[in-house]
């Protein structure tokens, strides 16, 4: 109700403004901000980024299929490399979350199937001290391992009961990271866990599990492409929306990712608990890349540029509206990039080493400031941006 009133107020006053202008001997040409340009460019970025993420997921699936057919150490290493590559293009897409968009609009949206975290390892497979735990080792309850079975089991009985997605694959490829952080090592699962007669039990089911997860990843990314492609359903809805609503969603998303998800959930919690398992990619020790890629995604959206896509940006219209504020946001974004880049790798070392911890704390503060600055940028555009 208040929003409606605000628009009403705006239009009444705008009409007044125009009538003022008519009275003036030198009519003023009011150039509206190119909001629709920003919105269209954003849709192009989203589509291109999901295309890249899917391409890399298809590559990952191909390499995993090779490993599952021929489980050798070399093929295992190739699968791990392909997983890390796939995370690169997916990482920047996280800037499209929290935007009331198809990735996470509700509990049925695919985000939880792609990137659920943190994950209780013993829901999937054996863990240290519990050789028979997990879906893989529970033949009685889950006689068949299939895509539909695994998708149906995701987050059943608890948010951490993650059965599918990037982090389920990560756990299957690396295993628990039981190393001490200063050794700078990731999880040490042997490839023989996938070899009949090798280590651990139920190797065949583990292979089936891994292959099914890789295929699901491709399926779920395809859903995003269907929504955002030029003839896509959501793209049409998005472009037809009130421009201020679309911009509110876009800005609110990067403000939320920066201040809540990245600074809060992913960095400060881990920093405080000093607990490896609170890391986003704790098995592969790839969390430092997740963090950098999330911020890169934020920067892509704000600067209106990704890969071959480039156009009118939020940075452009905020800076032309309020040059001082625009310069401040740009500087804060750059500072955030510098401060994140300064944190140590891997992240479990950055949060546990006394000399490295202050750098993480600084990065957290900078990301919080960045989130707040995006809200101010919204105010400059006349948009009420909320951080979730």
């Amino acid at each position: 109700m208040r929003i409606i009133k605000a628009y009403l107020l705006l239009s009444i006053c705008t009409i007044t403004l125009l009538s003022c202008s008519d009275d003036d001997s030198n009519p003023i040409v009011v150039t509206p901000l190119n909001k629709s340009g920003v919105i269209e460019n954003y849709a192009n970025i989203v589509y291109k980024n999901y295309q890249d993420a899917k391409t890399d997921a298809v590559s990952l699936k191909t390499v995993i299929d090779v490993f599952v057919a021929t489980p050798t150490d070399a093929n295992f290493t190739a699968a791990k490399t392909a997983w890390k590559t796939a995370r690169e293009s997916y990482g920047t897409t996280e800037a499209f979350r929290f935007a009331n968009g198809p990735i996470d609009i509700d509990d049925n949206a695919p985000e939880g199937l792609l990137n659920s975290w943190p994950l209780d390892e013993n829901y999937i497979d054996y863990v240290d001290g519990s050789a028979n735990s997990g879906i893989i080792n529970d033949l009685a309850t889950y006689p068949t391992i299939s895509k539909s079975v695994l998708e149906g089991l995701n987050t059943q009985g608890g948010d951490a009961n993650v059965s599918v997605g990037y982090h389920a694959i990560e756990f299957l490829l690396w295993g628990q990271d039981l190393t001490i952080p200063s050794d700078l090592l990731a999880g040490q699962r042997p490839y023989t866990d996938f070899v009949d007669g090798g280590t651990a039990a139920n190797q065949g089911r583990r292979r089936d599990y891994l292959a099914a997860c890789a295929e699901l990843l491709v399926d779920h990314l395809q859903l995003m492409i269907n929504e955002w492609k030029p003839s896509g359903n959501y793209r049409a809805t998005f472009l037809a929306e009130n421009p201020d609503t679309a911009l509110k969603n876009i800005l609110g998303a990067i403000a939320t990712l920066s201040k809540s998800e990245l600074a809060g959930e992913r960095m400060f919690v881990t920093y405080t608990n000093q607990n490896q398992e609170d890391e986003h990619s704790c098995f592969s020790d790839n969390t430092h890349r997740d963090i950098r890629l999330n911020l890169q995604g934020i920067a892509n959206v704000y600067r209106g540029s990704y890969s071959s896509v480039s156009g009118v940006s939020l940075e452009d219209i905020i800076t032309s509206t309020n040059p001082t504020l625009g310069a401040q946001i740009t500087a804060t974004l750059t500072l955030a990039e510098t401060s994140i880049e300064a944190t140590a790798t891997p992240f479990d070392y950055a949060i546990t080493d006394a000399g490295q911890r202050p750098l993480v704390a600084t990065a957290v503060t900078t990301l919080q400031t960045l989130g707040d600055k995006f809200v101010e940028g919204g105010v400059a555009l006349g948009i009420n941006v909320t951080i979730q």
Partner: protein
Amino acid sequence: MFEVVKAEEFAPLLLLILFYSNMKKLSPILFLLSILLSCSKDDEVYIPQGGDTNEQFSGGETTTFDFSQNAFSLQAPNLNTQEGLDFFVGNSLFNQNWVTAPASTTARDGLGPLFNAHSCSGCHGDDGRGRPPLYTGEVDHGSLLRLSIFGTNDNGGAINDPNYGGQLQDQSIQNIDTEAAFEISYQDITGQYADGTSYALQKPIYHITNLMYGPIANDINVSPRVANQMIGLGLLEAIDENTLLSFTDENDSNNDGISGRPNYVWDVASNSTKIGRFGWKANQPNLRQQVAGAFNGDMGITSTLFPDENCPPGVDCNTLPNGGSPEIPDNNLSHVTLYSSTLGVPARRDWDVTEIQEGKALFNQINCNSCHIPKIVTGNHPTIDALSNQIIRPYTDLLLHDMGDELSDNRADFLATGNEWRTPPLWGIGLIETVNGHNRLLHDGRARNIEEAILWHGGEAEESKLEFTNLDASKREKLIAFLNTL
């Protein structure tokens, strides 16, 4: 959120100044400003029926505006920077599963040996409300059975069952027997509105089965309790004690049949008796103790407030691995307490719709507001400024009321008798279905919707219940529709 609304109202002003910044002429700006101010004045004249301006802001400045499944999960928007960060730490400890010690999850180990849930969110799913199990043997539903025998302990509280303690845990770690299971059967109770419409209620009867640690006391009192939504709890803690006492009418001096009184309960940290605020019988004096009590009773996690494991008879818990002494250290208990204090309260929806305002008038007319007090101003919160001096609309007095024999659990809890229950806050009641996929209400979740919850009211609330049953169908619908906007 007040700030955001202000920003929204300023936005046109900013835009206009922007448009006019090219003109380099001052007078039109001043002219416009004056028009704008007059616009704003018109805006302010808009006062909703019912007279409570800003009544959509249920949690004062902690009010949030997400009405999705996340409605109960957002942090209050007015926290300071450090609180905002600490909230996330509390969130991780609240939402993620605790595991059996020893584990690589060093921050969250020590579950059990006996427990009801692996995490706080196991019962308070999405920071919302639990329900009774749907079938025998279902776990993680968000309800538990309190156990006690007659009499009071040295601190004035209930006396636990000698073998099964103060609550029945229906889960356990590997190699330790689970205490017992329970079954529920339902008895149908039918009634009729004055207009002839009939209704049916279901009264639960609990049967404890599979007792693994010897007999349970013959005079055992069993009190089922569901987990409550977590919103606005710090605001309730910030209500000045004198404000609560001003609501009391222990001898019913105004002859309205309603005689609220405070519970006075044991405060472990100060080793003294304090006014009770939290729990279905207001048996906890503050959130920190409520949280520590839940960690201990529901998850088997020790803390400095409750350092002892709930150890079943015949088991030497000293021989079991634990997650440290205590298992949740004080700083993390503080994080979860902060988290539990600062979940924002969702705003009202459709609060200014005529039918809703009529429903609210009916709510007041039949005296629901005598106990479900609509508006309270908080006092000073000891540690969190965002919760201090807030105008809130919790719809509770936090006092004990006799609710009649039908709702009685026979379990005394400090001053509360078996018939007495704390008035539960009603904020968020219309979003439980969205958040938790059910609308089970009252202490044991027996009511399947708001209407049934009203019909279960008895004792001091008997008169209001009767007046409700005398309303015609359209008025009943309006009253319930109003409650659904809370």
